[in-house]
C-alpha cells in the first residue's frame, strides 16, 4: 500500500513491481444528495472541490464531469503561469493563484512540475512599451514581481530570440516576471482530484448534467445522465459550455465561446529557457520538460464548439514564430489541437452569484484561465461555502456588466493569455 508519494515509496514499489499503488481516485456511484455539486471536472472545478473540502469542511460534494477529468481546456492549454496583470482586482486573484501554485505540489503530494522559469512579455513599439511599463509600475505597487528589460537584457535572458533591429516588429524591450513560468497540466488535474477524493469528494466522470431543478428561485437539485441529485448549491465551472449550463436556470451570460488552438513541436534538447509572449506578433512559446516547444496564438473570431480552429491561424502563428525565432524554421510541428474558450467582454472572469439562489457561476476566463486555477478555485469555494463573494471574487461579479464597472484587462494588454 503506497498512498503517499515520495522517493522511498517509489523505490520500494520499484522493487516490488509497482503492485502496491492505489487508485488515485475512486470511481464512486452517484449519491442521491450532496451539499454542493460542481459542474465541470477541469482544473478550476477540481480546485473548487479541493478548497471546499479543505478550507470549508464541505466534503459531501460531487464534481460532475461530462467526459474525463482534465479533458477540456485544462488538457489543452499552454500552462503559462504569471500574475503581472494591470488592474488591482486581476493582480489580486492571479497573484493569489501564483502564491498557491508555489506550494501546491507539496500540498497535494503530487509533483505538478511548477517551473518558475520566468515569463517575458515583449514590446515591439513605443505604444506597447508604454502599456507594459505602466503594468510593471502597477505590479510593483501591488507587490507583484515584475520588471522591465531592454532588448539586450531580453536577449541575455532568452538567447535564441532575434533582436535584429531590421525586423518588421523589432523587440525593443519586455516585461519579465521571474516567478512566472509553466507547470504540468495533467499533474495538476490529477493531483487535485486525488487530494479532493481523499477528503471524500465524489468525482463522477462520464456524467453529463441534463437539467437543473429550482423551486421559488432556488436551486434544489439537478438531473444527470447518471440520475437525479438533490442539492442546494450548484457551482458551474464549465468553461466553454458555461452558457449551456446557465441556460438551464435562465441566467444569461456575456460570454462567447471561441476556438483557441495550440500546438507542440517534436521534442528537442533544451532550447529556450523561459516563456515568451508577444501581442503584436501574436504568438507565445515555451518548452516543455519533455523538450517540445509549446506554442499558442490567438482565437478564431467566431463562436464554435468543435474544438477546431482555422488553419490560417496556425500558419500565421508559425510566421510570427519565425519572426521572433528565425532559427526554428526547420523544426517541425508535431501535434495541434483546439479548445473552446469562454471569452468575456472585458477579458476578465466571472466569479459570481446569480439571480437564482444557490446557482454560482465561474466562467469567462477566456484564453488565460490556467494560471488562475488554484486562485479561482479558492475564491469560488469561498463564495459557494458562504454565499458571499470575498474580496478577491467581488470585483468579478456578473453585476459589473450592468453597472459598467468592468475590469478591462483587454484594454491593458490586447490579449490576456
Amino acid at each position, binding site marked *: 500500500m503506497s498512498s503517499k508519494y515520495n522517493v522511498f515509496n517509489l523505490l520500494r514499489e520499484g522493487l516490488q513491481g509497482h503492485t502496491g499503488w492505489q487508485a488515485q481516485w475512486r470511481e464512486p456511484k452517484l449519491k442521491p444528495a450532496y451539499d454542493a455539486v460542481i459542474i465541470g471536472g477541469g482544473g478550476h472545478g477540481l480546485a473548487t472541490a479541493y478548497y471546499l473540502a479543505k478550507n470549508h469542511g464541505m466534503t459531501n460534494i460531487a464534481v460532475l464531469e461530462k467526459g474525463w477529468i482534465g479533458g477540456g481546456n485544462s488538457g489543452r492549454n499552454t500552462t503559462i503561469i504569471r500574475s503581472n496583470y494591470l488592474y488591482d482586482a486581476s493582480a489580486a486573484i492571479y497573484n493569489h493563484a501564483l502564491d498557491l501554485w508555489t506550494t501546491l505540489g507539496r500540498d497535494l503530494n503530487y509533483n505538478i512540475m511548477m517551473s518558475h522559469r520566468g515569463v517575458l512579455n515583449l514590446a515591439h513599439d513605443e505604444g506597447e512599451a508604454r502599456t507594459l511599463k505602466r503594468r510593471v509600475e502597477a505590479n510593483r505597487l501591488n507587490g507583484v514581481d515584475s520588471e522591465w528589460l531592454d532588448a539586450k537584457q531580453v536577449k541575455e535572458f532568452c538567447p535564441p530570440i532575434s533582436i535584429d533591429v531590421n525586423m518588421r516588429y523589432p523587440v525593443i524591450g519586455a516585461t519579465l516576471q521571474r516567478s512566472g513560468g509553466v507547470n504540468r497540466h495533467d499533474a495538476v488535474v490529477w493531483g487535485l482530484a486525488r487530494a479532493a477524493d481523499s477528503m471524500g469528494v465524489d468525482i463522477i466522470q462520464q456524467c453529463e448534467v441534463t437539467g437543473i431543478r429550482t423551486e421559488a428561485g432556488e436551486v434544489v437539485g439537478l438531473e444527470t445522465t447518471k440520475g437525479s441529485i438533490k442539492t442546494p448549491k450548484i457551482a458551474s465551472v464549465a468553461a466553454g459550455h458555461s*452558457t449551456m449550463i446557465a441556460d438551464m436556470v435562465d441566467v444569461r451570460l456575456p460570454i*462567447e465561446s471561441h476556438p483557441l488552438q495550440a500546438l507542440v513541436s517534436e521534442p528537442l534538447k533544451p532550447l529556450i529557457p523561459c516563456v515568451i509572449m508577444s501581442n503584436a506578433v501574436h504568438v507565445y512559446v515555451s518548452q516543455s520538460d519533455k523538450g517540445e516547444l509549446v506554442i499558442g496564438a490567438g482565437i478564431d473570431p*467566431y463562436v464554435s464548439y*468543435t474544438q*477546431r480552429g*482555422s488553419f490560417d491561424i496556425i500558419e500565421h502563428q508559425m510566421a510570427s514564430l519565425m519572426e521572433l525565432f528565425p532559427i526554428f524554421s526547420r523544426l517541425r510541428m508535431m501535434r495541434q489541437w483546439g479548445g473552446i474558450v469562454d471569452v468575456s*467582454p472585458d477579458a476578465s472572469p466571472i466569479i459570481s452569484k446569480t439571480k437564482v439562489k444557490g446557482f454560482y457561476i465561474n466562467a469567462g476566463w477566456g484564453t488565460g484561465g490556467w494560471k488562475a486555477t488554484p486562485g479561482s478555485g479558492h475564491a469560488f469555494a469561498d463564495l459557494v461555502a458562504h454565499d458571499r463573494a470575498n474580496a478577491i471574487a467581488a470585483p468579478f461579479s456578473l453585476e459589473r*456588466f*450592468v*453597472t459598467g464597472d468592468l475590469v478591462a484587462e483587454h484594454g491593458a494588454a490586447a490579449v490576456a493569455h
Partner: protein
Amino acid sequence: MFLIECPWCGERDMSEFHCGGEAHIARPDQSESMTDEEWAQFVFMRKNSKGRYAERWNHAAGCRRWFNLLRNTATDQILAVYRMGETAPSVATDEPVTPSGEAPIGSGNDAVKLMKPGEAL
C-alpha cells in the same frame, strides 16, 4: 477553415470575411428609457448557442457587404446564408440532443466519434 458562400460573390475562403458575432440583435430605439439591466442585455449578453446559430459576416476583402449566416456551432456546418433584414430560414440540422449539444457526427468534443454496433453506415 470555412468555405463561405457570399450572397453576391459566391464561395470564398473564410480569410476574406470578418465575423460580426450574433445576428438579429437590433439596436434599441428608445435606449434612454431602458434600465441598466436591459441595456446590458443588448450590449453584452449573447446567446452563444451550441447548435443552430445565426451570426453576421462581412465579405471584407470582397464586396464589403454584411450578410447573415446560419451555422451549427457544434459542427461548424454552414446551414444557410441570407441577407441582412431577412429572417433565418428553417433548415433541417442535427439539433443538440443533449444540453451540451453534442452532435452525433462532425464534432470533436470528448472523443473521436465511434459508430455503435449495428448503426447503419
